[in-house]
């Protein structure tokens, strides 16, 4: 029925990336549990690393799905990923320490049903549809959970809804200063949705190479993590937020340089046009 407009050839096989993405995200989310074990918030930055791992996996999934001409544009895949992911992730936060595992299962169930609906009820008949929408829902849920950990230091419903304000030395509970109560979740939603769809949207075409796209995904992930780390100053201690900020900056700087290098490699030719001319010699 459908015409495949691009061939998936070369690079790392998708299954390998998927397994790597799941394991890396889960391990990073659980490493953030060191916050509870040690009684600090220093390990919140692992949430950001989970975001990067999930986004790299997600951008390759979008590549698999959008190689078939689905006709709706690449951004729609990012939107449905996070629309279904946010619902699974919020329900999973109710399960305490098991939350990351429950997120994986719940998001997969939601994605599976959405995949069935699009492929059979809506008659899309795209071979990769069911698996891709399942994966994307998990990517969306993991990314949001990663942002939640990065900003609040925890992934339980209580940690996401309750914060505290200090008025004249007195610490009072406040539900407004929290990930959900302060609507930081809406920002995390869009940060993630843009970061997951952008890499393939920017790199698609005849000159597509996998390593360049995945490097861009990592760069988008670290850039989103940088913004989220700035927002985390409101919810966690300054020292912990600074650690996240430095990790994000270093990661972004490295992946950005790598991405520019890969772009130069793949470009037909390269001319440094210097947008701001050097006028000192005149």
């Amino acid at each position, binding site marked *: 029925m459908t015409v495949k407009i691009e061939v998936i050839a070369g690079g790392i096989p998708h299954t390998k990336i998927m397994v790597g993405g799941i394991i890396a995200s889960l391990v990073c989310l659980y490493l953030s549990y060191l916050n509870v074990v040690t009684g600090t918030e220093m390990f919140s930055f692992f949430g950001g690393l989970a975001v990067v791992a999930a986004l790299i996996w997600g951008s390759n999934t979008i590549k698999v799905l959008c190689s078939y001409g689905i006709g709706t544009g690449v951004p729609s895949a990012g939107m449905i990923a996070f629309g279904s992911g946010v619902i699974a992730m919020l329900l999973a936060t109710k399960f305490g320490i098991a939350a990351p595992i429950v997120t994986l299962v719940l998001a997969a169930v939601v994605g599976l049903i959405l995949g069935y609906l*699009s492929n059979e009820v809506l008659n899309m008949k795209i071979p990769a549809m069911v698996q891709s929408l399942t994966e994307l829902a998990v990517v969306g849920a993991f990314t949001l959970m990663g942002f939640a950990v990065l900003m609040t230091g925890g992934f339980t419903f209580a940690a996401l809804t309750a914060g505290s304000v200090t008025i004249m030395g007195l610490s009072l509970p406040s539900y407004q200063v929290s990930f959900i109560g302060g609507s930081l979740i809406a920002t995390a939603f869009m940060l993630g949705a843009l970061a997951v769809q952008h890499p393939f949207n920017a790199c698609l075409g005849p000159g597509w190479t996998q390593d360049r796209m995945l490097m861009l995904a990592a760069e988008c992930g670290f850039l989103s993590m940088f913004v989220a780390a700035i927002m985390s100053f409101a919810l966690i201690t300054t020292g912990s937020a600074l650690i996240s900020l430095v990790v994000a900056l270093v990661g972004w700087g490295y992946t950005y340089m790598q991405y520019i290098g890969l772009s130069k490699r793949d470009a037909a030719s390269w001319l440094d046009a210097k947008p701001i001319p050097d006028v000192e010699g005149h």
Partner: protein
Amino acid sequence: MTAVAAKPAAGGAMNPTAMVVGLVLLVIILGICWKVSPGLGLMALIGMVVGGVLIGFGTHFVPVGGAPAAMGQAPGIATGVAMLAAGAGLAGLFGGAWAAEQGLVVAVVTGAIGGGLMMAITCMMVNFIYVFGMGIPAASGKVKVDPITGDTQPEFKSQGTEGHGLPFVSFVGGVIGGILAGGGGTLIYLMLLDLYKATLPTLMKATEAQIMPVAISAAGIFAVGMFLVNAVLTAYNITGTIEGPHDPKFKRWPRAVVASAVASALCGLAAILIVVV
């Protein structure tokens, strides 16, 4: 191969087995909800299913042009459904959310007007840019005469295109779509807000005033999530582009209604389980 030729041929055919499976799934989800929360939860879920169906059905009216429209080769607004839904539909949702305290009817109508107004402005500015910026007249490629004004179309259509610009019937369709989708999104938000306002105080052991930020934000993000899921499923149904209510693809709406109902019920059940389990 060009992007136009590579469009998927999903076709207008229905898959009866899948439709029945979808309806059975819907009944099962409603049954689960009746089991865990017979009163408040089930009412909220039914409201959310109605809202989701309104979004799914309403999106069919919106003239989505996609990339071909941006090049002046097909009629409609030159962007994808995801962007139109996020722009116009969410404008309605936010409009309705402001009026949430005035009761269900006023809030839903406010949301519908917000969505319709946003689509009317979008459609007008799109035509403004088409006519004065790109220098192309509005002409439909799917019908001989405009069903509303009776204006003939083929004389204005350039050769090799599927039509271009935004004919009057597409404009009207866009406004109707914005009204339906804005009202549906607001309905989902209100249902969740009422549910959370009633259940969160006991769950979190706090007063209603204290949990209001959490209730509003959680209901809002769920409404946004369900809105985008429904809009993208509809986009899959129309394979990305549609001219409006006069387009032959419009006849595919029963598939989208079933898919939207099941998807909304599924997402709504998850949203209800947060507070009742």
